[in-house]
């Protein structure tokens, strides 16, 4: 984080600084990201793990749902109208 923040004083528009920290020891994981998976029967399947776009609050746990303040002064709702 410190290394990243230190770049803010030297980078300009459009510059990209690559931090020297790989996500994993091997880059093999990059081969399957957003790529079709071949099933045993030879057909291709897309690994789409996104969940349904539900229009009600989606809590991490039931306890969170129970503790939620319906007035919630730190929740800011913006009208799109």
């Amino acid at each position, binding site marked *: 984080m410190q290394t990243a923040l230190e770049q803010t*004083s030297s980078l300009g528009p459009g510059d990209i600084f690559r931090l020297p920290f790989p996500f994993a020891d091997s880059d093999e994981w990059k081969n399957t*990201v*957003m790529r079709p998976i071949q099933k045993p029967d030879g057909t291709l399947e897309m690994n*789409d793990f996104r*969940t349904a776009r539900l229009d009600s609050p989606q809590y991490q746990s039931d306890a969170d749902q129970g503790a939620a303040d319906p007035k919630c002064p730190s929740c800011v709702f913006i009208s799109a109208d």
Partner: protein
Amino acid sequence: MDQRQDPIDYIERTRSQYDALGYEPYTWVEYSAAPPWTALSKPLNEMNIALIASGGIYAHGQIAFHHKDDLSYRIIDTEIESTQLRTSHFAYDMTPARENINVVFPIDTLKTLAHQGIIRSLSRRAYTFMGGIYSARKVRDLLAPHLLKALQEDEVDLALLVPA
């Protein structure tokens, strides 16, 4: 260690994924004008830094995000214990973030940097929303101005935007 690969071309893979799923081609947002640029005028150790994150972070006691183009945002008091923070998002695997919220909301990391004097302070208020909002226009015209006004009120020197 294996030979490193180039960064993933997510634009190309998004096009391929949408095609494989039978969706209409994704319409990318394009802006012809260059973004405004403001050079920093002070060193890090004099900066009050704001944290903004789009990973659907909310605090225990707050209302969670819904997943249908939720334009709302949450104000997180950065004095909060990070164990009280949660995630709600439709489009990424939240398992690591739920084990350690700093993966998508580096609040403890920034507090440590402030404690060490690397930065002057972490702004008292952080802002979170749930990315993946289809309408870029609504983000630009509705959500972003709210966040900008809040950051100006907080008198921050730098805003750190953390995606998920």
